[in-house]
């Protein structure tokens, strides 16, 4: 019972629990998408404002996260980006992932879309990005979808519901996405410690 006792004694030392992430200042569905300007894997500055008349998909990515990796390997995002008339921007808010790391990932997997470096996490926080992957769809400067890429966290279902695919179809038809919010799954975004 020694190990169990050790576990219990450590849990006793925890302090009172206060808080969970506050979303008050972060973008939510129905609100304006915060502008940003970040550097892509090739060193170009990319701003959300550059795409004011286009549908924009934001994908929080981390090549070290098995869920991001799986979707890259399976081509989930690459296929969606190619099939739809949208601007697809991956954002890497991992604190240790620099421009070169993003360039390596784009090249290794012939990604076909850009990865923007957000090492200080400012853009991730402004959108309350929680997981990798975490998806946002922006239409007319407004967040219209926020959540998971699909309903299959473990990648085991024969038939998956791809929420982003559905949202883009609805946006293209002039409709509001339904669902507009789902729970994103995956690793926590590896933000820099504050």
């Amino acid at each position: 019972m020694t190990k169990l006792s050790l576990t219990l004694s450590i849990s006793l030392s925890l302090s009172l629990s206060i808080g969970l992430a506050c979303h008050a200042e972060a973008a939510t569905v129905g609100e304006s998408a915060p502008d940003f300007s970040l550097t892509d894997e090739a060193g170009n500055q990319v701003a959300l404002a550059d795409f004011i008349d286009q549908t924009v998909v934001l994908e929080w990515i981390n090549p070290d996260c098995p869920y991001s990796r799986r979707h890259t390997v399976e081509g989930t995002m690459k296929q969606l980006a190619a099939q739809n008339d949208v601007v697809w921007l991956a954002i890497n808010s991992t604190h240790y992932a620099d421009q070169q790391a993003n360039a390596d990932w784009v090249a290794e997997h012939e990604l076909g879309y850009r990865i923007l470096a957000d090492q200080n996490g400012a853009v991730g926080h402004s959108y309350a990005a929680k997981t990798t992957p975490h998806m946002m769809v922006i239409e007319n400067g407004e967040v219209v979808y926020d959540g998971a890429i699909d309903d299959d966290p473990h990648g085991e279902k024969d038939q998956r519901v791809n929420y982003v695919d559905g949202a883009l179809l609805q946006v293209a038809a002039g409709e509001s996405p339904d669902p507009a919010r789902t729970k994103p799954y995956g690793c926590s975004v590896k933000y820099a410690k504050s």
Partner: protein
Amino acid sequence: MKLRGRVAFALAALPLAVAAGPESGLDNEPDDPRPTTTVELLTDNRQVAPGGSVMLGAMLTMKPGWHTYWRHPGEAGLPTRIRAESPLVEAGDMQWPAPMEFGQPGGIAGYGYAQEVLLTLPLKIREAVPVGGMVKIPVSVDWLSCKHVCIREEMSGSVLLEIAAEPDQSTHPLFVAWAERHPHPVDPYTVQTQALGNHQWQFDVTWNKPFEAAHAFPVPGEDVFVESVATTQVKPNQSRTLLKLDPLPSASGDMEIVFSADGQPAITHTFNISETSP
């Protein structure tokens, strides 16, 4: 300790994807075959009668600094899964000790376990299984283990059970010890629930004795988002939790919340999220 109920075990866990960032130091490096977490399979009894039940356990032992997740992992992460893959048994719902809260960069809430945890899965043996033999139940366990990076790992093993007309009634002591950490329902006076309106609730929990640390772990459904949860001490033996939810219009019905305080049995409590302030 004599582990009479330990009938089979497997130590090897296979990383499905292994990666580590520059901070990793002595931790798992890219393509490092060493698992962050090892798993031992146990049963609470080595014998079971046809139609009877036995508890399958997966003891997860995590490297220092690594953690695995509770059934509701918080804002990121995924729960550990135990699966018994045999037509001879019918599995129930996994049972989880009360979790701890992780401090994840970015204020991302995470609930789960560090060091070690015994997760359990009740198995009902089918009536048709004949007495007198041994049955082998294949088991798979998969989990997400996180520290500075996250690694998805899995293991496969099996447990052996002796099918007996009158099985031994003893219970593996580890199961007894960890069951004490499972949340249990309490009488309605122990948790005073108040709907404050605007999707906010206040829970005053009266504990058996004074405490120094208390926590609350909401378990929202798919259509409910937790906006904030905060627990404070209002009396030496009373904690107060303020919970603010952000439900989708489709959300209704009961929601569970688990409370824990140091050295005392954890509590599970349900409340109706459709309630409004008086």
